Every structure is written in structure tokens, then in C-alpha cells.
């Protein structure tokens, strides 16, 4: 829903006093209040947002320079630490938690004048693909309120689809930006691993976690990435950035571009209507001059098994800090220290967090480590090698984001393995560390379908350029 112009235009309108930062914040807060029924937002940062907006308007009135995102409101997934309100990761164990500092990503956006107005719902601790695992509320899909918004950044995707703010932030450990973006019909970018600092973002699986934007256009996603990307002394895994991530708006020639369509993602289990949308996208890209070939990576069907060993292992380690002693929920009726840990964690964690902690503990435990964890990390190497050889043949790869469109709320709730299978086409690039993006490509069963585009490691700018071209040609 087009309540906002693109980010650049919104910032320009504030800077030229056509509108003001305060009126933008008030507008976003009203839209959030009017759309409460979708469960996209967990909390608002009203006082801090309005105060920052006033400061920005004052600066403009004084003729001082303001940043590239001056007065542009945004919504952050609630696993980003933010000042001025709670950061819960949608979990009971962090209910009421007041972050003492902000994530680097938020700091960088604020330095350019953007204003965080609210915190978006997610699967608790980002564990899930539907936002049904939130300990507080289920996010509904803006295109059909009986269906899920996807996850784990479901609140962020729904917020952008509803037009509550010009952009939102999400995190992607195994598809958590791309999948809800596909389900809700918005753009979702998963950058190269290490390109954006994760300092101040609640850790899920440290070897695959990345953060990125959800937006209504590729241009907006590129701008937000351009502000957030780069090395951060507070995150030792960050890598060097390119000078710019903004794709040229005039670039449309694709005669030298070769794209691989991933064979393993187009076979059994893919919904026919979803497949047709992807094949239509392939035709559009061909018409624009791109060369399309089929690529095959035989280990790809194993990626999900690798993922569901590596990730729970890292989850169980990262969630061990929630012990009920220094912050978060603490059981008052415990008699001993051990009992205090056990009762605090048992009440504070939801079923999915416990499930992943248990799997992770199992695959890392003595006698099983080699068979599960080490084996999975070795198959991961095979995946990396197969992606590298595929990228020797092609510049980019493409496929669907998910085998099906957004499912009905509750449809997969009784079987965790079935829920995990939704991630089958998104997890591989997290394990490999390369960038990917979901761009709206059409409708299947009257629900949005995203086209997933992937590029080699650190080729985020090329990926955004391709995505911008596709976005421009797809309706022709």
C-alpha cells in the first residue's frame, strides 16, 4: 500500500520542508495504530522517535546539513537492540528488557537521520518461518489475513507490505528476510555474510546470521545497505565494503549477463503456479538479453540437513547466556542456583527455542559431535565448492524462494520438521555466505511470489543491479 514515496524522495521532502520529520513520525505511528490487527508491530518508540524528529526539523530550520535518510521512519525487527523502549526478540525471557546500547546498524541509520519508530514481530529469537513462534502474537499476511506473513522477519515484511513505514530491518539466518519478503510481496535483501555489522543484534546462529533491509523497491534496499555496510570494530566478522551499493538507474543492458537456473530448486515439490511465475521471470530476463542456462549442484538437497545441525548447535550455545540471573525473566520460586537456571529457562523459552537448544545440545554432545556437527560442517564445504564451480559458469543464479506461497495460519504448527522444510530453498546461501534477494515476481493462488536471485560472495552491488533491472522489466 503506497503510503510513502521512495526513501530518497521522502528524505528530500523533509530536507526541502515540503513535509517534516515530525509529521512523518506521526503518520507512521497512526498507520501502525490503524493496522494493529495484523500483529506486525510489538512496540512503538513514540517519545524517542518524536524527540529525534524534532531535532532533525530544528537542524533543517537552522540550515544545518542533515543525512541521506533525514526524517525517514523505519521499523526494526525486535531482535535489534534499540533505545527508548523494549527489545524482546519476541520472547518471554526478554520481556521488559531495556537495551543499554543500540545495534551498530541502528546507529548508522540514525547518523543519516532515519528514525526508528517501532519494533517488528518475529518468531521468538528468529526461530521459524511463519512468525507463529512469537511468544506474543501471530503476524498476519496483508494479502490474506488467514495466512502467515512468513518468518522469522514476518513483522518487518508485513509492516512494509502494509506501508507502515518506508522500510524495515530484518535478520536472515536461513531465509528469514527472503521468505517473508516473498510471502508478503516486498523486496528482501540478504547481504554477503559479514557485510553488515551484527553488533547489538540478538545472536541466533553466528556463522550464518546476517541482517538486511525489507523495502518496496530494489533501489531502497540498495540505499539502506549502502548506509549500513562496512567494517565495525564491535563485530570481528565484518568485511570490507565496496564504495557504493547503489545500482545505476540507467543500466538495462543484459547481453553479457549469464544466469543459472538452479535445477534442484525447480523439480519435485515445487508448486505448479509458483513454478510458472519463476519461468515467466526467466522469460522476462531472456527477453531483456540475458543468457539463461541450467546449473546443477548435487549436494544442494543436503543443505537443509546441514542447516538443521549447524544452526541448532550455534543456537544452543548463543542461548546459554539467558540464565535468569543478570537480565531477563527470573523464576522467583527456585531454591538453588541450578533450579533458578532451569526454571527461568523453562518458563522463559518457548517450545521452538527449547527444541533447538535440545537438538543443538545433542549434536554437540560427547560421542555425537563427529557424527553430526563435524560431518555437517564438512558437507558445508562441499556446498561451498559446488557453488564456486557453478559461479565459474554463470554470473548469477536464480530460483524460487519457497516451494509454495504463504500457508494458512496453523497449517504446519503440529509438525516441526514440516515447518523446517519451508526453508529448503533459502538455507544454502546462508551456509555458503553469498548474497541473495527476493524480488516480487507475480502471483500464484492470488498470493505474492518472490524470485530469488543470488550472486557470488561480495558481489552485492552486482546483485542489486540485476534485481533493479528485473524489477524494471518484469511487467513489460
Amino acid at each position, binding site marked *: 500500500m503506497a503510503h510513502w514515496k521512495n526513501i530518497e524522495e521522502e528524505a528530500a521532502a523533509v530536507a526541502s520542508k515540503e513535509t517534516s520529520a515530525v509529521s512523518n513520525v506521526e503518520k507512521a505511528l497512526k498507520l501502525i495504530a490503524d493496522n494493529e490487527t495484523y500483529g506486525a508491530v510489538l512496540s512503538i518508540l513514540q517519545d524517542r522517535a518524536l524527540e529525534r524528529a524534532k531535532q532533525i526539523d530544528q537542524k533543517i530550520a537552522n540550515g544545518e546539513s542533515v543525512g541521506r535518510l533525514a526524517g525517514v521512519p523505519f521499523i526494526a525487527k525486535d531482535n535489534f537492540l534499540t533505545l527508548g523502549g523494549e527489545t524482546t526478540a519476541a520472547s518471554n525471557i526478554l520481556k521488559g*528488557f*531495556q537495551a*543499554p*546500547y543500540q545495534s551498530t546498524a541502528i546507529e548508522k541509520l540514525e547518523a543519516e537521520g532515519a528514525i526508528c519508530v517501532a519494533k517488528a514481530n518475529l518468531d521468538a529469537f528468529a526461530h521459524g518461518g511463519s512468525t507463529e513462534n512469537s511468544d506474543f502474537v501471530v503476524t498476519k499476511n496483508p494479502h490474506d489475513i488467514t495466512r502467515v506473513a512468513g518468518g522469522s522477519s514476518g513483522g518487518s515484511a508485513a509492516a512494509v507490505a502494509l506501508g507502515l513505514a518506508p522500510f524495515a530491518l530484518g535478520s536472515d539466518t536461513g531465509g528469514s528476510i527472503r521468505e517473508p519478503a516473498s510471502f508478503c510481496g516486498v523486496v528482501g535483501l540478504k547481504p554477503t*555474510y*559479514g557485510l553488515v555489522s551484527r553488533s547489538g543484534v540478538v545472536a541466533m546462529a553466528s*556463522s550464518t546470521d546476517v541482517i538486511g533491509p525489507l523495502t518496496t523497491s530494489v533501489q531502497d534496499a540498495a540505499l539502506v545497505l549502502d548506509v549500513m555496510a562496512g567494517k565495525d*570494530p564491535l563485530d*570481528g*566478522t565484518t*568485511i570490507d565494503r565496496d564504495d557504493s551499493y547503489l545500482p545505476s538507474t540507467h543500466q538495462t543492458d543484459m547481453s553479457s549477463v549469464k544466469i543459472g537456473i538452479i535445477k534442484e530448486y525447480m523439480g519435485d515439490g515445487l508448486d505448479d503456479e509458483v513454478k510458472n511465475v519463476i519461468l515467466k521471470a526467466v522469460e522476462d530476463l531472456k527477453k531483456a538479453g540475458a543468457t539463461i542456462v541450467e546449473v546443477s549442484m548435487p*549436494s544442494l538437497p*543436503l543443505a*537443509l*540437513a*546441514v542447516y*538443521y*545441525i549447524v544452526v541448532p548447535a550455534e543456537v*544452543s550455545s548463543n542461548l*546459554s547466556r539467558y540464565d*535468569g*540471573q*543478570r*537480565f*531477563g525473566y*527470573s523464576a522467583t520460586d*527456585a*531454591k*538453588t*542456583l541450578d*533450579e533458578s*537456571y*532451569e*526454571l527461568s*529457562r*523453562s518458563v522463559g523459552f518457548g517450545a521452538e527455542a*527449547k*527444541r533447538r*537448544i*535440545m*537438538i543443538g*545440545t*545433542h549434536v554437540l*554432545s560427547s560421542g555425537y559431535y563427529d*557424527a*553430526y556437527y*563435524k*560431518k*555437517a*560442517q*564438512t*558437507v558445508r*564445504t*562441499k556446498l561451498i565448492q559446488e557453488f564456486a564451480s557453478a559461479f565459474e559458469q554463470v554470473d548469477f543464479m536464480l530460483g524460487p524462494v519457497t516451494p509454495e506461497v504463504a500457508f494458512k495460519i496453523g497449517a504446519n504448527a503440529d509438525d*516441526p*520438521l514440516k515447518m*523446517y522444510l519451508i526453508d529448503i530453498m533459502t538455507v544454502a546461501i546462508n*551456509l555458503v*555466505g553469498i548474497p541473495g534477494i527476493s524480488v516480487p515476481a507475480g502471483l500464484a493462488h492470488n498470493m505474492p511470489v518472490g524470485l530469488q536471485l543470488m550472486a557470488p*560472495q561480495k558481489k552485492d552491488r552486482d546483485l542489486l543491479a540485476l534485481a533493479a533491472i528485473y524489477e524494471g522489466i518484469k511487467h513489460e
Partner: protein
Amino acid sequence: MSKLSSEDILKLARLARLHLSQDEVLQYQKELSSILGYVEQLDSVDVSGVEPTYQVTGLTNVTRTDELIDYGVSQADLLKNVPTKEGAYIKVRRMI
């Protein structure tokens, strides 16, 4: 190998510092067995001569200057989230 007993589940819960109800033990016994059954498809993969990958950036020994950064955060801000405290101390149950 993938079939977990209720004793296995209780052992894992103990290692992970989770207290589980009887219903949860049965639930996780079933669910974890099913998930582990799925991931065990890796058993048949030949990985001879392949080394594991634990991180993908290629970065090694990343360090930064050991200096004090002023976040403007007070002791009171940090203690605000502490469940039980006494003065400026975090209060926990006795350990020994």
C-alpha cells in the same frame, strides 16, 4: 541411532539447563527423533578428503585496540535489567 529414549531427553534437558514436564519429554522424544532421522541423510555422504568449514569470511585473528569506549551508559542503566540486586550487586542464590 535416531531413536531417542526418554532418558536421553532428560539427559539433554539437564545439560541444557531446561526443566521439562512429562508431556514435554514425550513431545521432544517424538519430535527430536523425527528431526534427527531427517538430518541423518548426511550419514551416506562421502566426504573423504574434504575439510569442515566453520566460518566463511576467511578472516583470521581479528583484533582491535583494547581501549575504553564511552557509550554514555551509567551503572544504573546496566543494573536496570537485573532481576534481583542488592545495592550495585547482582544477587544470585548461593553456589557452594
